[in-house]
């Protein structure tokens, strides 16, 4: 690799940070949602079931978005490093994922 090792290490640490923080946030959202749904079952008078579902859904959506955000982050890092081959490759990955969503619509 032509890039200095510390630049590569810094890139990998930024990506690691995104993935681990994202996992925590998504897991916490699902856990809070499930807890709210459970509370609703113990005491149906508390109107928590809907917000519980919304939290779980948010967690699932964050999980699905996380790898896509990771590719977008790499796209930005490669762009900054003017590594245009990898800018194109990460853009291609994003385009293919986007095409799947468009086909499903």
């Amino acid at each position, binding site marked *: 690799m032509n890039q200095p090792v510390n630049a590569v290490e810094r890139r990998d640490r930024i990506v690691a940070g995104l993935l681990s923080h994202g996992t925590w946030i998504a897991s916490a959202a699902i856990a809070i949602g499930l807890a709210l749904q459970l509370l609703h079952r113990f005491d149906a008078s508390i109107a928590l079931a809907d917000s519980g579902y919304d939290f779980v859904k948010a967690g699932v959506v964050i999980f699905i978005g996380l790898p896509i955000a*990771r590719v977008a982050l790499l796209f930005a890092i490669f762009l900054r490093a003017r590594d245009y081959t990898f800018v194109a490759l990460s853009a291609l990955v994003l385009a293919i994922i986007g095409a799947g969503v468009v086909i499903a619509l």
Partner: protein
Amino acid sequence: MASSSVAWLFAASFGASALGGVLGMASGIFIVPILTLLFGVDIHVAIGASIVSVIACSCGSAAPFLKERLTNVRLAVVLETATTLGALTGVVLIGIVPTAFLYGLFAVILALSAQQMLARRREAVSAGAADARSWATMLRLHSSFPDRALGRDVRYQVGKLPLGLSLMYGAGLISALLGIGSGVLKIPAMDTALRLPIKVSSATSNFMIGVTAAGSAGAYLVRGDIDIGIAGPVALGSVVGALAGAHFLMRIPADKLRIFFVVVLGLLAVQMLLSALGLQIPGGH
């Protein structure tokens, strides 16, 4: 969904992920059989839930590998063009292929995984001079990783990229069709075609699985094929299970667990094959 079902979904995913973590395998391959055979969930809903848990486990376990410089990020991006293209093909095909075919294909993948688990992986690192005209050289994919046993960085070269890309396309396709990480195809691609050191291969494969799975999960979410009530507890159970597996279960003798997993994979393969043929076993759902 009843609270008891949510708790059981969480517990089953936790158990599968924790035990799988000891052997370094993703729990995805167990989630679909557990959901269809034990919980009586429709196979398409099971695939949707499983693919989310595959993403969750990939993202949750990526950071330590990255920090230890075991993940080859550049190689991952190159291979992800093939895996996401495979996943896109899977998204198109899943609406067309009959359910019986999905069960049958799952049985084949389970049987192959059992066979792969029996055969130990061997290091097949290419140490010779890099071919200056190879794709891997032009894309600057050759790298190094810190080997703790040797106490120094070990350089490695990336082997046959076109063959690796073809196998990765297949892995992406199978991942989207069955809701799994497709380790069964990624391992031969990484070991035989690309000839990576096992640690680099495992870390890079795990890193890519999330993006591959997001390629189909995004489409399934938009299409309404992901049941949040099932996917939520399964994803959470898998992430917590993978963490627990890594931290607490290291002392279980891996060889005994390996045999146990081979037997379980074999039994699940038979069950899925029977489902493919439209046969029900007493005690099944």
